[in-house]
């Protein structure tokens, strides 16, 4: 209910509604972006960009329901864009690129990762993009497999498979069964 009211106010240019949306969802989005990109710096860029675009377009936002899912989808799209950009502009393989970005520190970061989150993000970076997306969207964003299938333009069966194999590999990585 609160989100519907937020959307209504956002359409009318409310600063308070933008502030509330920002405060309410920045943490979730940052965490999702961290596990999808493998580092805080790219995650910060993606989430800041999501909110910037959101601020530009919220005046004509056509959204009847779930603001959180909208922002999560925008974050996912931002990460995919970043991935495409990297694949076009960098010769490095993605995990290495992620690792480098992750290790860099800006003078002032939006957030600091806990040790567990750093480990999780590093392990997630070793998974294929599709598995990483499915696991993040299922566990962190609490999305249904059907919704994820729609986002990935694939069948539920494929998504289930990606989830199952991704979880197994992630477990092995985190438990040290797969060596770096």
């Amino acid at each position, binding site marked *: 209910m609160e989100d519907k009211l937020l959307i209504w106010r956002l359409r009318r*240019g409310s*600063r308070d509604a*933008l*502030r509330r949306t*920002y405060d309410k969802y*920045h*943490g979730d989005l*940052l*965490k999702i972006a*961290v*596990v999808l990109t493998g580092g*805080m710096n790219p995650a910060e860029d993606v989430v*800041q960009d999501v*909110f*910037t*675009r959101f*601020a*530009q*377009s*919220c*005046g*004509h936002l*056509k959204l009847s329901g779930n603001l959180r899912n*909208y922002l999560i*989808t*925008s974050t996912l*799209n931002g990460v*995919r*864009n970043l991935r*495409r950009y990297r694949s076009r502009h960098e010769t490095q393989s993605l995990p290495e690129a992620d690792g480098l970005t992750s290790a860099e520190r800006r003078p*002032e*970061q*939006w*957030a*600091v*990762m*806990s040790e*567990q*989150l750093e*480990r*999780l*993000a590093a392990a997630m970076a070793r998974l294929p993009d599709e598995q990483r997306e499915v*696991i993040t969207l299922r*566990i*962190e964003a609490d999305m249904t497999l059907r919704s994820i299938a729609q986002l990935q333009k694939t069948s539920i069966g494929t998504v289930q498979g990606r*989830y199952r194999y991704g*979880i*197994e590999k*992630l*477990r092995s990585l*985190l438990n040290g069964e797969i060596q770096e």
Partner: protein
Amino acid sequence: MKSAEDMKQRFRQSTLSVNQDRHEAIFAEILRVQEQSQETKPAGVRPMNWRRIMRSPSTKLGVAAAVLIACGIGLSLWQTTGSGIALADVLTRIEQVTGYAYQVSSTLTWQRITSKWTSTVLVSKEDGIKMTVTASDYSNTTQKALLYRHAVGDESFLLPRANSLIEVHHGEKTYMRHIYDGVKLDYYKEQYNDPHAIVKEMLNYKHTSLGHSVIDGVTVEGFQITDAAYGGAFFVQADHLGDPDKVDVKLWVDVNTFLPVRLEEDVVTKEGARLRDVSYDFRWNVIVTPDDFKPNIPEDYRPPVGDIIHRPFDEENAIKGLKLFDDAVGRYPASIEDRTLVEEWMKHTGYDPNSYKELSDEERSMRTNELISISAPALFYMSLVQSKADPAYCGQTVGPKDADKVLLRWKLNDGQYRVIFGDLHAETVSPEKLAELEKALPK
């Protein structure tokens, strides 16, 4: 499933802590963008279609001036918002192409009028856009229909280096030159259905996927926009055709090259006009030379209304317009909220649109630009209303000698007010100071 539960537990335990200073700094930036967006994109304001209005010298010039000047409003609308990812890739891809060509078929249905025409468009990233009408057909040749006539062979050139637009009507042996002084040309590219401008515009709106299809043997993916606020369809901005009511835009993109294959725009306005544009036969990476974009205007061709200079509708030009009005009429216009300003000026100066034909090219140009200048305060005021800047105008009670009285005021983003006083000097004042000043205004 134990693994899944373990992993969920790991996700829950993985946290991050926010740096509050950075958090606030980022929000300040986001807020600035929101405010800028509201400031530069007044709801529903789109540049109006000067091209079709000014085609006919018989159009009331008072109206035409207002329409012309309205072209300047909303020019900086290029926010790359929206959720489209593939569309953003399409835009990137188009930007890599230096020269391309395509055909546009247009049909306008309005009341008893049906106009159909086809054009060839040539685009150079460096040199501009050239459009040539290659076929046309009309069901009706009433006076109104003349506004929408496109004669075969008519050409128009959008020339970024000269910041101008030139139309050449070979059948009538006339040409028109628009010069944009401090106004960006980007918006006008939409008038040519330039896919670069159209995709950029589409990114401002929510779009849906139409899935895959095949056009002329090419596998394509479709995108659709139905938001009535979409401004890419260039016809619907003419004020007498009304605002868009129903919009259906479909873009089909080659799945291998990411370049457009077909663009369909179908717009129905609140006045019942319907425009359908189809862009097709795209040829990417064609060879273009600067000579392709040099208008050929024979010496015996004449401009019906002279060169038209477009300027932004800002404080500076509003002041110039008010001064011009005062110079001609001896006072400020009673109202700047609508066209009465132009009508009032025409009445007092004995301006007769019918005498236009008898004027020299230079005089016609001067007259036209005078009308544009006179309309500037009204259009500036309109933009303030639409951006909810709390404007107020007191021309009925404040005159040129009232150096300390508020003639026009509006709110700035920081909460302060900008005030143009009776003697046309401008100051920024606090809300408290404004209240004090307005108390002193004659009732």
